[in-house]
């Protein structure tokens, strides 16, 4: 079975079966990949199909694999009830991304290009921070925020959501900055640039792709956050879409059509980013794993 290509050219007789075998293997791999994709993507498919179904269909006690009697009623309902929540989620997502950049980009630069004794301690702290479960932070932050009047505010929620993004962002950016050629930094300083100018005019432009990756992830973290929305908001006023979906879940009578349409809306940023920023997402997914 070794080197089917070689065998095929050398031994004319065996060529048909070997080529045949190779084709079969490809076909089998394709089939297996197709099954895997169907299973992995089915829940997302079900959201999209469900979001167009009528309440009658959804409560018929029968699952329809293909759209049955499609309607836009769920989306009309969601846009009537959830537009404010969508805007809230956008503000929180953008806010989390901005916070992550402001905190992480300079820190990552300092931790990669300056030799400081504190680097070991800070990088260790960042690695450990990634381990801390959000519920631990949420419980304390609820009371701390109560005390400093950040409960039920955008800054409070964004500061809490930053815990998902900031340690990750610093570690990813730091790994990236290691690769920046020092010559450019020397050159800038030799030309009389201050530390800040070097950072702003050399490091940031060169780090653009990693900065975009980190911003995309921070946005998705803020957009998709549920646990902090559930704890540091008290349900009046500020309410992101994740919380909106959760409150749609009644104990006995869930309006599944509305839930599915709201869920579909919640998928939009990830979908858009998957299309326009796919390379950033793929690199970010693996970048988190001890690389730098």
């Amino acid at each position, binding site marked *: 079975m*070794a080197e089917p290509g070689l065998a095929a050219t050398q031994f004319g007789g065996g060529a048909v079966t070997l080529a045949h075998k190779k084709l079969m293997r*490809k*076909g089998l*791999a*394709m089939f297996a*990949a*197709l099954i*895997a*994709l169907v299973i*992995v*993507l*089915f*829940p*997302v498919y*079900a959201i999209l199909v469900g979001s167009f179904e009528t309440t009658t269909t*959804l409560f018929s006690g*029968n*699952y329809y694999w293909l759209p049955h009697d499609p309607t836009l009623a769920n989306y009309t309902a969601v846009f009537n009830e959830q537009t404010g929540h969508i805007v809230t989620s956008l503000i929180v997502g953008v806010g989390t991304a901005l916070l992550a950049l402001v*905190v992480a980009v300079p820190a990552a630069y*300092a931790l*990669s*290009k*300056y*030799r*400081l004794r504190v*680097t070991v301690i800070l*990088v260790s702290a960042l*690695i450990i921070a990634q*381990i801390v*479960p959000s519920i*631990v*932070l949420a*419980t304390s*932050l*609820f*009371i*701390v925020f*109560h005390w400093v009047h950040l409960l039920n505010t955008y800054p409070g929620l964004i500061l*809490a959501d930053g*815990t998902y993004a*900031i340690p990750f962002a*610093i570690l990813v950016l730091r790994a990236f900055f290691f*690769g920046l*050629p*020092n010559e450019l930094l020397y050159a800038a300083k030799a030309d009389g640039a201050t530390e800040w100018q070097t950072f702003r005019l050399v490091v940031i432009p060169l780090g653009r792709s990693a900065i975009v990756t980190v911003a995309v992830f921070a946005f*998705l973290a803020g957009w*998709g956050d*549920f*646990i902090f929305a559930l704890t540091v908001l008290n349900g009046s006023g500020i309410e992101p879409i*994740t919380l909106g*979906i959760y409150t749609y*879940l009644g104990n006995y009578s*869930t309006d599944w059509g509305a839930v599915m349409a709201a*869920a579909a809306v*919640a*998928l939009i940023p990830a979908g858009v980013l*998957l299309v326009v920023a796919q390379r950033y997402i*793929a690199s970010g*997914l693996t970048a988190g*794993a001890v690389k730098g």
Partner: protein
Amino acid sequence: MNTEVETDPTPARSQAATASHGAGGRPTEPPRRMSARRKERLAAWLFLTPAIAYLLFAFALPIVYNVLLSFENVTPATLSHFFSPWAGFSNYSFILNDPTSREAIVRTLLFTVGSLAGQFVIGFALALLFTTTFPGRTFARSLIIVPWLVPLIVSGVIFKFLFQFQGGAINQLLMDVGLASKPIDWLDDPQISFWTILIANIWLGIPFFTMLLYSALQDIPEEIKEAAAIDGAGVWQRLRLVIIPMILPVIEVTFLLGFVFTVKVFDLVIGLTGGGPANATQLITTWSYNLSFQVFSFGEGAALNNVLLVLAMICAPIYLWLSRDSLRRSSGVAR
């Protein structure tokens, strides 16, 4: 990749830098001006200030305060104060004697082990699949990460929809292909619901395991796989004796991160079962949420949080050890 080599700026370069400062008309040792070195140091600390402030406020303070809370008797009446009456170890003894808390701790462990096993087997199989060439491979690989981009609460909610007793896709499929004669009560049968959250969570982790293991498999030189094949190693032997040992470091990292991720799972279970039926799917996270935010026993919730924190921190030394090379590294221009 000049990162390792240039840990020290060459003497010529630093002299050039000092010289240029000198050429700019600055005296070398003015009493009131900072030296270049001190300036760099100050700049580094200023660059680090936001991050240090953030880490102290959003991580250190809540963790320390959580320890404090776990020794206090927090009631809705005392919530508006930063400190509540001292309670000694009573919150911890509550946790140890409360059957739901104890079950949640054991269940979290089972859930973690089960999830990691399932995610590894499926993720590894898919990673191997993606190393073979077939039409549409790149497309399939880019789509496999989709579940990982879905907000976790949305995943929980959609699984609740799919696992419904009546009209749920999963029961319908099982009955249509003859694997079940009657619908399974995935969500309301306490004997079954643990499997429901486990299946959903395994699904959730597949992209992560697949991507990490796939990137490791790709790094194995083709010659090594071919050499093993020529030496007559079968598929299973190649896997066990060549491939797995070669990617073992990545497998370790993947399990480590998978563990960290799984002990934290919250949104998925809240959306899917809400910890029910009859607390049969409460994990440490969901039960802690319940204690703190539903019955307002923040002290008990904090005590359970600390159990979770200790559990999660088991892997901190391993994580740090695996990252040991990057901890001290700097490729800097500054001293």
